């Protein structure tokens, strides 16, 4: 059901970070838990600012959290 070309590793990163809850991640970024759900489901593409905020929570670069789906498909 994913329709957006931007994918992300949020779900995996949350689990790698002591199984961080969606609620905790949402609070850390100042957004709603429902937005985290939409992001993880690939149904919402964040703004650049939110992408940076999310990446900062995990101590990663933006391109380590978000990826372009065509690129990911090509490298597979």
């Amino acid at each position, binding site marked *: 059901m994913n329709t957006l070309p931007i994918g992300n590793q949020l779900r995996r990163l949350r689990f790698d970070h002591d199984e961080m809850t969606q609620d905790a991640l949402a609070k850390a970024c100042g957004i709603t838990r429902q937005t985290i759900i*939409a992001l993880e489901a690939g149904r919402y593409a964040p703004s650049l600012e939110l992408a940076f905020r999310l990446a900062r929570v995990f101590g990663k670069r933006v391109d380590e959290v978000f990826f372009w789906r065509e690129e990911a498909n090509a490298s597979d």
Partner: protein
Amino acid sequence: MRIALVMLLSAAVGVLLAAPWIDWPLHEGYVGVILMIGAALLLRRYWQRGAETRGDEPGEPEREVWHGLASTSLIGAQVTTALLLAGPGLSLHSPAAHRLGITAWTLVAGAVISWYILHRSEVQRDERDRAIAANADKAAHTVLAVLIVILAVSLGFNPQQRLQAMSHVFLGHVLLLTLIAASLVRHVLQLHGYRRDAADHAG
């Protein structure tokens, strides 16, 4: 489907509140307020349970939109029915106009109280909520503009005798109904936006 159901149920209550053939034990405005408060309390409990068990509860901004849809449908239907029953010659100082005004404003008070019941202190609106609201706003403004143009044209081309039969109170309420219609479009599109990107499961 759920959006249409909430709209229709709320509108049905609005029509029943304005229906002159129903003899309510209380003033119909108070009946509406009691129903709104009851629905808000039930919904708050339902969403709270959803948050604890399924994790699929709507966020604060979406809750506000659901509340807006239900209360606007109810008040809109009540005003429309009362206006249709009173006819275009509705006079400001008539029992029908007084009843319409008192009921509508009591229902507005009920909407404020029920909003307060559903409202949580940690209101959080993020960029996704703003994007959904902005898309819905665009369509609502278009609908409002179209309705006003239709109204202006139909008033302009109406024969003199028919225009004279329409009171200021009636025309004022028709203008208010265009605002209510635009607001309903906004709420429906916002909820559609939330439905569209809601995930099938939460983690």
